């Protein structure tokens, strides 16, 4: 069946939802700035902008650093909620069996119907931060830094799709309805270095951090904040890491989400 229709159904769902639920749309608009404030607040807990530069080690532009962190963090969160959370929501409201009754594979249905929401959210967030970046960095500087951020969140979405689908297969296979994501997401963000750089984490936590795709997304986005020119070598390395993780997580989840689905179908969890 046409995957285009599946994608379109996601678009249609979002339009209907926001049309009938204006306050949710308003919140989507305010949300990026709320998160930015939170992250800047957290950042300043560790000292002033000057001491921050010293802490981080390299010469970074604090505002750009925080904006990049915020964007990468929000987008990572968004993918995890959008895919894992949608399965929980479908189960709560009873739409899950009818989603499964779509002739496409469940992982494809879940991902494709989610992508419009991702594009919308990422688009809104970029559009809201772009003027700020241009004001602070000037046009060409801003354009350059923005491109790195866009690259980071676009590439970063790919492994996260698979990574979140892995969760989803787990969520499908258990009969529990508790909100596993609610406490898992902040933990993942902590280990990805969303709140402060991952290399400041204790050694054991750094191992976990290396396995999380969001770590690389956030780090890549943050490279945009380096004053002068960011290191190309490092950018290339991070891109490589994200691509590799895309392949690993997406193929793993392709297999595992089916296993999760079958387990759920055996247990009667649908």
């Amino acid at each position, binding site marked *: *069946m*046409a995957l285009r*229709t*599946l994608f*379109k*159904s996601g678009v*249609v*769902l979002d339009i*209907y*939802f926001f049309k*009938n*639920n204006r306050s949710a749309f308003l919140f989507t608009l305010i949300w990026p700035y709320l998160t930015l404030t939170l992250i800047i607040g957290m950042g300043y807990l560790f000292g002033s902008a000057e001491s921050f530069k010293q802490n981080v080690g390299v010469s970074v532009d604090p505002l750009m650093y925080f904006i990049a962190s915020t964007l990468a963090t929000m987008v990572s969160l968004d993918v995890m909620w959008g895919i894992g959370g949608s399965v929980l929501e479908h189960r709560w*409201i*009873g*739409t899950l*069996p*009818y*989603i*499964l*009754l*779509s*002739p*496409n*594979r469940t992982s494809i*249905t879940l991902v494709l*119907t989610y992508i419009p929401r991702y594009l919308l959210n990422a688009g809104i967030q970029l559009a809201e931060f772009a003027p700020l970046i241009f004001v602070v960095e000037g046009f060409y500087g801003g354009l350059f830094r923005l491109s790195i951020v866009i690259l980071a969140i676009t590439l970063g979405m790919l492994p996260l799709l698979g990574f979140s689908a892995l969760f989803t297969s787990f969520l499908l296979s258990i009969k529990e309805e508790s909100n596993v994501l609610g406490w898992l997401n902040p933990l993942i963000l902590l280990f990805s270095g969303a709140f402060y750089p991952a290399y400041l984490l204790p050694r054991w936590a750094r191992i976990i951090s290396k396995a999380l795709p969001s770590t690389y997304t956030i780090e890549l986005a943050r490279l945009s904040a380096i004053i002068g020119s960011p290191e190309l070598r490092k950018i290339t390395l991070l891109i490589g890491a994200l691509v590799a993780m895309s392949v690993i997580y997406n193929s793993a989840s392709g297999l595992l989400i089916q296993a999760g689905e*079958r387990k759920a*179908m*055996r*247990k*009667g969890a*649908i």
Partner: protein
Amino acid sequence: MLKLDVKYDVLELRNRGYSMSEEDSIIARNLRKIYSTYLRKGLIKRERQEVHALKGVSFSVKRGEVFGLLGPNGAGKTTTVKILSTLLLPDGGEARILGFDVVKDASKVRKLIGVSLTVEKGFFWKLTGRENLTYFGMLYGLDGQELRASVQQCLELVGLTSLGVADKLYEEYSLGMKARLSIARALITDPEVLILDEPTLGLDPPSARTLRELLVELAHKKGKTVLVTTHNMFEAEILCDRVAIINEGKIVALDEVEKLKRRLAGKVSLEIIAAPPAKVPVTSLIETVRSLIGAPSKAFPENGLVRLKVVQPLERVEETTSRVLDILHRKGCKIRRVEVKEPNLEDVFIHLTGRKGF
């Protein structure tokens, strides 16, 4: 309504080794299902328990037929329906829809069926009925003009447009409206086979009648195959061409309603409606009566009253009546109505399943 691009070709299916009669759209063969549940024993320890929900269920439904799966709560109706709609894997046996195996060819089966499970949920709260249908239509592969037309037609068929609520939010729907929308979704792709779990739950009597007429028309005029489950005997009797009575995971009878009733030739149905005194628990009252009668019987608590039914040969009806009335009197019950009737499907059901407790 549109035609789906998937057509099944009986000849082609035969060539591929499927033995199916042109008439049988749904085939269930020896279906078994065991649910494992865990009983918590303390913080970590838990005990595994098995529920044998289906113990070898077999039946087949012909093209153009309305087939009813009739049984009490927990009989295994929903379990059967979920297996047939590819949402639950059986632990034994097999099932085919239009020749396709529900496990191995699940995605093909999904294109041929329209399904309604619990009618009281399964939609997005913040979308209107029409928007919900449009979304699911797209999920099932419809688009453009075809989609819009099909949505409109289904909304009309289930009467949501005439109620004027097609463009109201789902969260504002009453139970009956939700049920209608659920049926509309099952119809959206104009499927060959409809699988509906308790479709008339929550509908008022006139709406239930309209829906039954719609289902009969789809089957008899358009050649669709309709499988419904119900625990409403009256409904099964007037809606279904054939009925399978399922109890505790087994089919105890399968036939046309008239033929099922003929099994009770020479028997009559005694119905007594009584008002038990407040201090006597209804269940214990029913148990006492049942243990003393010795004939297949069933009691239904109905808003404060008890409706007791006994199926027995005509010549014994007087004796039983006086005995039951005697017991009820002694327990302090007020008798509201005593009636002796020709048996209906409910009595067939009682006859087949009513020897044990209920």
